[in-house]
């Protein structure tokens, strides 16, 4: 609770500077809205259901794309960790793909899948998969050999070894992978929605641009940032903390 005071002061300070800049009248109102205008856009947007609808639509795509990334990421990660040949061939390729911003794929996606839903989901999958691959393979490769030995002397077969020992032992890395993957999927989704079509948050932002309504644009940016922050902070960081504690990996 102690930390709340400096946080509040900081936010108030930002609002004050914003309001001050607005009062200077450098840009016209519709290009540089005041905090008050953005707040009312926010309230109205939720009141008439636009934002709720858009967020739901975005999340639907995100969840489909994200789930697919996790699935592909885990499978590829397991393959890379299990077979040297796969690591030598696909490994460097994954690292290269990871450095390609996923929105770059959009032109291709739009042509392949036409303007629809599937193009955006495709981009989301490409955004989320690679981090998951890397973290899953690292996690699996770094399982303490002594845990595997112990399990073997207790009579596990290969399948049991994977499901009962290797996979749970890799969970701390998997959680990190899931968290990064989520963040990248979220970015990819927004980029995809900006350029692609549909009815998500990204589209509303574009709509704001087309209508010259910067208040709407800023509101959507705030929403995108808040949703990213909230999921990361309250979902993934919490999960990560619980897991690290349980696995005895906390530095404390």
């Amino acid at each position: 609770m102690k930390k709340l005071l400096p946080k509040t002061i900081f936010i108030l300070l930002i609002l004050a500077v914003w309001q001050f800049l607005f009062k200077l009248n450098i840009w016209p109102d519709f290009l540089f809205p005041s905090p008050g205008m953005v707040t009312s856009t926010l309230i109205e947007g939720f009141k008439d259901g636009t934002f709720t609808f858009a967020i739901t639509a975005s999340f639907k795509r995100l969840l489909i794309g994200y789930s697919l990334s996790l699935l592909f990421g885990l499978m590829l990660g397991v393959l890379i960790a299990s077979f040297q040949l796969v690591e030598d061939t696909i490994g460097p390729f994954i690292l290269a793909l990871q450095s390609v911003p996923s929105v770059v794929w959009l032109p291709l996606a739009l042509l392949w899948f036409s303007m629809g839903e599937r193009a955006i989901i495709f981009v989301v999958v490409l955004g989320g998969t690679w981090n998951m691959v890397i973290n899953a393979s690292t996690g699996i490769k770094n399982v303490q050999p002594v845990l595997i030995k112990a399990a073997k002397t207790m009579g596990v077969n290969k399948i049991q070894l994977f499901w009962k020992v290797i996979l749970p032992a890799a969970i701390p890395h998997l959680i990190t992978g899931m968290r990064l993957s989520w963040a990248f999927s979220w970015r990819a989704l927004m980029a995809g929605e900006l350029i692609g079509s549909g009815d998500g948050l990204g589209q509303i932002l574009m709509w704001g641009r087309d209508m010259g309504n910067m208040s709407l644009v800023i509101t959507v940016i705030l929403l995108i940032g808040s949703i990213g922050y909230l999921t990361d902070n309250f979902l993934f960081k919490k999960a990560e903390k619980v897991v690290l504690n349980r696995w005895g990996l906390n530095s404390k």
Partner: protein
Amino acid sequence: MNLLNIKDVNKNFKQENGRQLEVLRNINLKIKEKEFISFIGPSGCGKSTLLNILAGLIPVSSGQVMIKNKIIQNPGNDRVMVFQEAALFPWLTVIENVLFGLKIKKIDKKKAYQKALEQLKAVQLDDFKDSYPHQLSGGMKQRVAIARSLVLDPEILLMDEPFGALDEQSRLMLHRQLIKLWQKTEKTIVFVTHNIREAVKLSDRVIVFGSNPGRIIEEFRIDIPQPRDRENSALIRIENKILDLLEEEIESRGENTYEKIAT
């Protein structure tokens, strides 16, 4: 009756530079049922490698290891290993760790739980059954590891420097508990250590290994009833003999191969 028969075992490891490293040379050893036997020697003498071979975790290069006339090639239910690091599964509670092997053996749930609880009582950790490993001290973790192995009722307990990472007090307490468990369950125990006093105090027989290549240089039979008094003059004599032997090894093989001869 001999339970384990180690015959002409050699073990080489391929090094990264492609050369063969001779880890064990010509090991011949018979281990009796219910015997408590220790392997002692400097690090790099192959004592842990031999234990891993007995566990079926690594193959021999030549020779064979037999358990009751059956050649050991894989891990088996008749042998369970306890490691220095305890190697508990951190995502499972204490009792779930003890249940792990029983579940693999597909033992009836209720019966398994009963067994696990009994075994935890035997190491006095039943109060901690729902704790997670990270909440336990090193000595407690090691007791869970022992319970997890004993619950499978193996004929042979293989212990790889199980108390090496513990403080002196926990170690002394675990010595006492281990001897009690051993007397009660009548298991055969193969115990690897670099601690001479520990080996002499616990074992019926101490096998002394030398290194470069790893080989057996001497064995000592210790016919003193348990529990043993560490002031016992016969024990101290044997302890000194082993120390002399290892010192001789240092002189003939160069000091740098020895880091870990502790008393």
